[in-house]
C-alpha cells in the first residue's frame, strides 16, 4: 500500500516531469558513456586475454636471417624461457586474378604434423591442412573477406621468384594478427596485404631454408624477467642475423589493441565526470526549487509530527527516482552504443569471437556514481529544509536580496535596459546556478568539437602523408637489393612518367641508453617523391651524410641535432656506425629516419643499390602498368596511394560518423536539458515577478525577453568557454592516439567551431522556446494572490 507521502512524491514527480526527464537524460549520457567505455574495455581486454591464453600467444618475438633448427633447442634452455617455437616467416608477392595491383603478404610455417605450440590458429571456415599435404594453405580471414576468397579457391603467389598455385583449405585467425597491417604501415589494407600459413616443409623448401628457421617466438617461465630473456635471446641470435627480439609491448598487433583500450579509458573517466557533475547540479536546482515551493508543506508536515528523517528521505526519494531513471536509460544506451561500436571494431580487430560483454561492475559503478552525484546535489537543499523551524517555514520567505551587478558597478550601468539589469542581477545572485548552466552548455559545445577535430586531423594527416610527403602514385619493393640500373628497367614500363630509387635498411638506432628498431629510408637528395619536410612543411634537402629523423624518434631517443647516434644495421654485413643527427623532420605516421641514398649505401658498405622504387604514373595507363608489373618476379610488394587512401577514408569515415552521431546526440541532450531546466526553474521561481510584469502592461514577448536575456548572457559566456573546453578535450583525446605509429596533428577549423556553436545555439533556442510557451499559461490572477 502506497503511503500518502509516497503518493505526494508521485504527484510531485508528475508535475515536474519535464525537469525530472531532463536531469535523468543528462545523467544517462554520462552513465551511457561510462557503461559503454567500461564494457568495451572489458570486452576487449577479456576477449584478448582469453584468446591469448587459449591460443597460446607468445611473449617474445624475434626475426633473424637464418639459424639451424638446433639453435631453437638452445633458446628453449635459456633461463626464463618456458616454450620456444621456431618457424619461418617470409614476404611473398601474390597474384590475385580479380585485383589490378599486386598484393603481397607474409607466409608463416606450421609444423608438418600436429598443431603449433605457440600462436595457435583459430579455424573460421574450411579445414585444417591435411598432415603432409602440399599445395594447400590457410588464409587470414580479413584478407580472404576483402578479396572474397573461400575455402577451395585457388590462390597464386610468387615464392622466392617462382609462381605457384595453392588451394585455400581454410580461413583462419591468429592471435598474432588481431590487427593486421603491412609491417611499418599504420593502417590496414586487407585487400593487398594478407597472412598465409603452409607446412614447414613446403615453405622451407621454396626458400632454401629447410632445417633452419628465421622466426622465433617464445613464452616466459613464471617469474622470468622479460628484459633479461630478450638480452639472452639477442646474444644467441646475433651471429645468425638476429634483428633484435621484442616483447608484447612492441608487438604491432598487441600495441594497437592496447592503444584502443587506453583511449577508452580516457573516455570512461573524463566525460562521465563532467556529465555527472552537470547532472548533480541540475538535481540540486530541481530539488531546491521543489523545497522552496513546498516550504509551507514541510512546515505543516513537521508541525504534525513528521521527523526530519522522514522528510529528508521523502526528498531523497525524489532524487533517487531521477538517478534510477538515468541509470536505466544510461545503461541501456551504453549497451546499445557498445553493441554498435563492437561491430565497428570488426573493421580493425579480428577476434574469433568479439562480442559485447556487458561489464556488470560498470552498472554498479554507474549507479553508485549517479547516486553520489545526486546526493551531492540534493544534500544541501534537503538539509536546509530539515533545519527549517515549522513556524518560520509557514511564513513566506522574505524578498531575495539583490544588489547592482558587477558590470553595473563599473559605471556603465546606466547603459543597460531594465530587462538586462534584471537578468545580470539574477545571475549574480545565483552564481552556482549560472555557473552550472554555463558548464553544461560549455560541455555540450565542447564535446561537439572532438569528433570533428578527429575528422579534420585525420584528413590533415592524409593530406600531409599523401600530398606533402609522398608525392608518388605508387611504391614497390624488391625481393632483394639490386643495382640502381634496375631503375632504367622500371622506367621502360608502360605509363611511367618518373621513377626514383630508394632503399630501406633495417637498423637499430641507439642514443645513450635509448634505442629503437626502425627501417632507415634512403632516397636521392633531390627526391620529388618521398619528400622529407620540417614542422612547417618546408622541404629538407638530405645532406650527403648524417641522419634526419622524425621529431617523434628524436623525442623517443632524447636526441637533438648535432648528437652522434649509433646505428646498428640488422642486414647485410650488419655494420655498426656512428652517424650524426643532422635534422629533425615532421612525420605523422610515426618514427622514421631518412638518409641520402648514396650515404646509406656507403654506410652499409654497398655500391649503388636500391630495394624499392617510387613512381609517378600516367593514371590513364595504370592497368597496363600494373599488368606489366605482375610479370616482374623480383617485386615483393606494391603500394598504390589511391587505393590506400580510399580504403582508409572508408574505414575511418564509418567509425568517425558513428562517434560523431553519438557525441551529437549527447551534446543536444545536454544543451537542451540544461537550458530547459534553467528556464523552467526561472519561470517557476519568478512566476510572480513575471506575472506582475504582465499585469502592469508588459507583453508576453517583453516578459519572455527577460528570461531570454538571462539565457543569452549565459550562452555568450558558455560558447567561447565550450570551444576552449572542446579544444582541450580534443587535444587530450587526439593526442592519446599519439603513438609511435600514428601521430595525429591536432587540427581545429573554423568550420568545426561554427558547427558546434550552431548546434548548441539551435538546441538551446528550441528548448528555451518550448519553455517560453508556458508564459502563455502563466496565471496572472493566481500568481498575484499570495507571495511564495
Amino acid at each position: 500500500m502506497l503511503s500518502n507521502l509516497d503518493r505526494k512524491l508521485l504527484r510531485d514527480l508528475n508535475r515536474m516531469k519535464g525537469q525530472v526527464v531532463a536531469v535523468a537524460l543528462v545523467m544517462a549520457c554520462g552513465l551511457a558513456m561510462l557503461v559503454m567505455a567500461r564494457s568495451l574495455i572489458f570486452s576487449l581486454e577479456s576477449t584478448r586475454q582469453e584468446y591469448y591464453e587459449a591460443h597460446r600467444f607468445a611473449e617474445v618475438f624475434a626475426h633473424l636471417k637464418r639459424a639451424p633448427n638446433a639453435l631453437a633447442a638452445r633458446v628453449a634452455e635459456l633461463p626464463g624461457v618456458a616454450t620456444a617455437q621456431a618457424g619461418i616467416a617470409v614476404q611473398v608477392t601474390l597474384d590475385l586474378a580479380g585485383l589490378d595491383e599486386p598484393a603481397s603478404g607474409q607466409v608463416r610455417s606450421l609444423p608438418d604434423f600436429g598443431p603449433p605450440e605457440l600462436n595457435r590458429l583459430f579455424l573460421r571456415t574450411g579445414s585444417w591442412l591435411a598432415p603432409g599435404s602440399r599445395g594447400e594453405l590457410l588464409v587470414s580471414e580479413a584478407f580472404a573477406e576483402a578479396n572474397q576468397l573461400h575455402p577451395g579457391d585457388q590462390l597464386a603467389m610468387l615464392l622466392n621468384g617462382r609462381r605457384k598455385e595453392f588451394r585455400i583449405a581454410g580461413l583462419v585467425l591468429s592471435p598474432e594478427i588481431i590487427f593486421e597491417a603491412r609491417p611499418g604501415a599504420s593502417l590496414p589494407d586487407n585487400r593487398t596485404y594478407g597472412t598465409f600459413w603452409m607446412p614447414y616443409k613446403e615453405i622451407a623448401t621454396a626458400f632454401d631454408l629447410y632445417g633452419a628457421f628465421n622466426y622465433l617466438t617464445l613464452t616466459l617461465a613464471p617469474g622470468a624477467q622479460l628484459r633479461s630473456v630478450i638480452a639472452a635471446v639477442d646474444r644467441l641470435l646475433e651471429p645468425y642475423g638476429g634483428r633484435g627480439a621484442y616483447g608484447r609491448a612492441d608487438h604491432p598487433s598487441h600495441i594497437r589493441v592496447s592503444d584502443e583500450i587506453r583511449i577508452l579509458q580516457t573516455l570512461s573517466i573524463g566525460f562521465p565526470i563532467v556529465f555527472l557533475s552537470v547532472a548533480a547540479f541540475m538535481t540540486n536546482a530541481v530539488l531546491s526549487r521543489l523545497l522552496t515551493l513546498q516550504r509551507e508543506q514541510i512546515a505543516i508536515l513537521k508541525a504534525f509530527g513528521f521527523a526530519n528523517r522522514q522528510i529528508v528521505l521523502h526528498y531523497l526519494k525524489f532524487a533517487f527516482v531521477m538517478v534510477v531513471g538515468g541509470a536505466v536509460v544510461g545503461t541501456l544506451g551504453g549497451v546499445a552504443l557498445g553493441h554498435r561500436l563492437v561491430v565497428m571494431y570488426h573493421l580493425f580487430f579480428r577476434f574469433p569471437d568479439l562480442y559485447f560483454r556487458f561489464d556488470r561492475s560498470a552498472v554498479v559503478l554507474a549507479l553508485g556514481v549517479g547516486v553520489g552525484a545526486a546526493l551531492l546535489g540534493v544534500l544541501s537543499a534537503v538539509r536546509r529544509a530539515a533545519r527549517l523551524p515549522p513556524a518560520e517555514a509557514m511564513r513566506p520567505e522574505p524578498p531575495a536580496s539583490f544588489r547592482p551587478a558587477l558590470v553595473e558597478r563599473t559605471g556603465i550601468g546606466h547603459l543597460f535596459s531594465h530587462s538586462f539589469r534584471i537578468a545580470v542581477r539574477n545571475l549574480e545572485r545565483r552564481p552556482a546556478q549560472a555557473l552550472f548552466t554555463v558548464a553544461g552548455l560549455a560541455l555540450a559545445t565542447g564535446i561537439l568539437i572532438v569528433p570533428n577535430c578527429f575528422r579534420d586531423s585525420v584528413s590533415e594527416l592524409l593530406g600531409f602523408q599523401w600530398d606533402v610527403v609522398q608525392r608518388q602514385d605508387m611504391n614497390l619493393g624488391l625481393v632483394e637489393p639490386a643495382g640502381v640500373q634496375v631503375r632504367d628497367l622500371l622506367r621502360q614500363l608502360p605509363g611511367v612518367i618518373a621513377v626514383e630509387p630508394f632503399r630501406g635498411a633495417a637498423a637499430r638506432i641507439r642514443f645513450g641508453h635509448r634505442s629503437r628498431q626502425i627501417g632507415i629510408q634512403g632516397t636521392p637528395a633531390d627526391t620529388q617523391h618521398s619528400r622529407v619536410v620540417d614542422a612547417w612543411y618546408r622541404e629538407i634537402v638530405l645532406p650527403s651524410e648524417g641522419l634526419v629523423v622524425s621529431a617523434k624518434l628524436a623525442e623517443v631517443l632524447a636526441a637533438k641535432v648535432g648528437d652522434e647516434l649509433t646505428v646498428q644495421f640488422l642486414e647485410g654485413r650488419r655494420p655498426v656506425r656512428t652517424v650524426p643527427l643532422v635534422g629533425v623532420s615532421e612525420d605523422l605516421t610515426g618514427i622514421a629516419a631518412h638518409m641520402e641514398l648514396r650515404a646509406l649505401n656507403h654506410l652499409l658498405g654497398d655500391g649503388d643499390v636500391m630495394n624499392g622504387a617510387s613512381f609517378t604514373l600516367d593514371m590513364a595507363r595504370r592497368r597496363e602498368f600494373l599488368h606489366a608489373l605482375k610479370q616482374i618476379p623480383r617485386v615483393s610488394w606494391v603500394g598504390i596511394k589511391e587505393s590506400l587512401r580510399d580504403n582508409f577514408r572508408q574505414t575511418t569515415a564509418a567509425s568517425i560518423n558513428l562517434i560523431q552521431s553519438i557525441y551529437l546526440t549527447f551534446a543536444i541532450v545536454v544543451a537542451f536539458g540544461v537550458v530547459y531546466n534553467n528556464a523552467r526553474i526561472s519561470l517557476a521561481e519568478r512566476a510572480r515577478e513575471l506575472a506582475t510584469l504582465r499585469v502592469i502592461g508588459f507583453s508576453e514577448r517583453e516578459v519572455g525577453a527577460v528570461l531570454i536575456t538571462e539565457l543569452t548572457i549565459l550562452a555568450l559566456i558558455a560558447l567561447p568557454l565550450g570551444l576552449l573546453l572542446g579544444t582541450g578535450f580534443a587535444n587530450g583525446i587526439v593526442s592519446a592516439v599519439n603513438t609511435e605509429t600514428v601521430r595525429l596533428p591536432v587540427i581545429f577549423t573554423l568550420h568545426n567551431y561554427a558547427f558546434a556553436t550552431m548546434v548548441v545555439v539551435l538546441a538551446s533556442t528550441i528548448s528555451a522556446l518550448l519553455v517560453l510557451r508556458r508564459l502563455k499559461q502563466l496565471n496572472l490572477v493566481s500568481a498575484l494572490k499570495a507571495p511564495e
Partner: protein
Amino acid sequence: METLTPQNLAAAGRPQVFHVRGLTKVYGMGAAEVHALAGVDLDLYAGELAVLLGPSGSGKTTLLNNLGGLDLPTAGELRYRDFDLTLASETELTRYRRDAVGFVFQFYNLIPSLTARENVALITEIARDPMPPEEALHMVNLGARLDHFPAQLSGGEQQRVAIARAIAKRPEVLLCDEPTGALDVRTGIVVLEAIERVNRELGTLTVVITHNAVMAGMADRVIHFSDGRVQHEHRNPTRAPASSLNW
C-alpha cells in the same frame, strides 16, 4: 446620507470611466460551478475615490481583475470609456493595462532584482506619457530611498514603491487590492495617505477594495459588495483624511 445614482454623478460633470451591467463570472462547470460575480451593475467616474467593501470571498477581487483587464467575464457588459473590454484581444488587453491602469496589490509584487527607482522606471519606459520615476517616488514620500532594493525596504515602503510604480504612467484608473492587508495600522495609514494624495493631486479614478470597513471613511463613494453583486452604495458628504483613520 444621500443615495447616489449614476445620473447624479454624471450631472456633477464627471465623465464615466467604467460602465458595468449584469456582469457575471462563473468558475468551474456543472455541480462545481461558482458564481464569483452574479450580475454586477456599477458605474465609476473620473477622479472619484471609491472603496469597494465586502467580506472575503464576496467576489470583489474578481471584479477588480475584470476591471483591470486581467480576467474576462463570463457574461455581461464591461466598458472602459468606449472600449468594450469583453471583446478585447490579449494584445489589446496588454495595451490597456500598459496605458490606462495602475495596479497596487496586497503583496506589493515588486521586482526584487530592481531598485525602487528602477521598479518605477520599468513602467515609465513603456508608458505613453509618464512622469519621472523620482517624481512618482517623491509623491509617496520615498524620495530618500530611490536606490534601495525591495529587500532593503519595509513592507510599507515596498507598498509605496508599488503605488509610485502604478501612478508613474499617469493612469486613468488606479486599482488597489487590499493595499494595507499585509501592513500594521501605522504603516497602513501612510500607504493610504499616499493613495489619497495621488487621487487628489492627479485626479485618478481610484478603486480600493478592502474588507476593512474603517477605510470607507476616506472614500467619495462606498460600494458594499457581497455574494458577487453590489448590495448598496452610499456617498460620504466629506472625505475623512486617511491620517484620521484607525482600526
